[in-house]
């Protein structure tokens, strides 16, 4: 195994996943380097969300290998059997990745601040005194410090998603995964969320973003990946992929989006 400096942040190799008779992922491979911002685009049902969810074990793959920062989350042995790291180990590896969901999934019974300090306190065992300043700083960063004591139900969709981003960041992840973070938002609210994400990208956070926002993919991503039918059809610099797509399926999708 090469040293960690050459090891990518995420290495996914030949991921296979099926739901019943439907094969959702047909051998997806992708490597993500430090500081890369990868946008994954594609029609719905292309497997892009499933791919993302496999990386942090929200879905379990049937075959393939996932290595996070040099540590193997899952691998497939010679007999084709998937072998996941032991539960505790797998949780530790997955904790390197923060995740933002389409439907926010904030904890409704906790205040905004409570949402941010919950995991640092229960998972990392930090004291309240140690967690609160970090949480407050993150809320300032996403422009919601004034909402510290509010409950999620009192926030707009855009504010909820910014809290969700701050909550993920509170665990100090090395990688951020976004699963269609603006798809559940009213159009006028997507801007504030995309701005927050752009800010993260500017700070060189490693990001993997499944999105329908073509402008975000084109302007912010360092590499855009087009998925269709359970596999990666084409990937490249956004300028190339959007300006001069090579594959007919990519061309058709981009034409359709325009």
């Amino acid at each position, binding site marked *: 195994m090469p040293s960690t400096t050459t090891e990518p942040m995420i290495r996914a190799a030949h991921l296979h996943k099926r739901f019943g008779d439907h094969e959702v992922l047909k051998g997806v491979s992708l490597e993500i380097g430090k500081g890369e911002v990868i946008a994954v685009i594609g029609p719905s049902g292309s497997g892009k969300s499933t791919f993302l969810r496999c990386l*942090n*074990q*929200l879905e379990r793959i049937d075959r393939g290998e996932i290595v996070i920062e040099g540590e193997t989350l899952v691998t497939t042995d010679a007999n084709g059997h998937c072998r996941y790291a032991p539960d505790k180990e797998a*949780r*530790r590896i*997955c*904790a390197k*990745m*923060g*995740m933002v*969901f389409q*439907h926010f*999934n*904030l*904890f*409704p*019974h906790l205040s905004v601040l409570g949402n941010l300090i*919950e*995991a640092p306190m*229960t*998972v990392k065992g930090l004291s309240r005194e140690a967690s609160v300043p970090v949480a407050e700083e993150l809320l300032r960063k996403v422009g919601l410090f004034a909402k510290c004591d509010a*409950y*999620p*139900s009192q926030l707009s969709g855009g504010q909820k998603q910014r809290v969700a981003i701050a*909550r*993920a960041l509170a*665990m100090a992840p090395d990688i951020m995964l976004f699963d269609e973070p603006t798809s559940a938002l009213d159009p006028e609210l997507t801007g504030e969320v995309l701005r927050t994400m752009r800010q993260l990208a500017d700070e060189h956070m490693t990001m993997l973003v499944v999105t329908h926002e073509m402008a975000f993919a084109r302007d912010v991503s360092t590499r855009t990946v087009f998925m269709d039918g359970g596999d990666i059809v084409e990937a490249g610099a956004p300028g190339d992929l959007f300006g001069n797509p090579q594959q007919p399926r990519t061309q058709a999708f981009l034409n359709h989006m325009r």
Partner: protein
Amino acid sequence: MDYILNIMGPLLEGTAVTLQVFGATLVLAVPLGLALALIRLSRFRAASTAVAGYVWLMRGTPLMLQMLFIYFALPFVPVIGIRLPDFPAAIVAFVLNYAAYFAEIFRAGIQSVGRGQYEAAQVLGMSRAQTMRRIILPQMVKRILPPMSNETITLVKDTSLIYVLAMNDLLRAARGIVQRDFTTMPFVVAAAFYLVMTLLLTWGFMRLEKKYAVYDD
């Protein structure tokens, strides 16, 4: 009025018995019900099925029969057979019975919390136990308050069943006086006592609901 004051003594003694059965049942059946609900929802199929069978048995037979069985028949059961005095026998029957109902309420409450909450907790690195304790159960509490209010009010009135073990609860005390004095006034007073107890419970649950109303799901 003098008559009512006169019968107050025995009726209050009866109320004390009623409240003891009520309190002991609540304190013991809630944790047992929660444990049953968690086993019912666990991945261990055999244990889950066993709990389902237990709930069926407890909800499917009369509480009075269960109480009579524990008091009169349990002593003759091989191995586990023990003879319990009347109060413990009543408590065991009430706890076993009510835990089954509570388990179903808890199960419904836990299952009403969406999958997204589990996923959010998981990606933050929380274990199953941490997720349950910190994220799911606190949300369950808010959702089960209305059915729990129902069930505890039913429990207050169900305590009158202990008369079959010849225990002097509120209703039996009232009946004793009715038969002695040939007046139905003690029934009226007993009804007022039950109403006061259920009113206090209703008020308590309303306060709890108000407390949990600070957030919406």
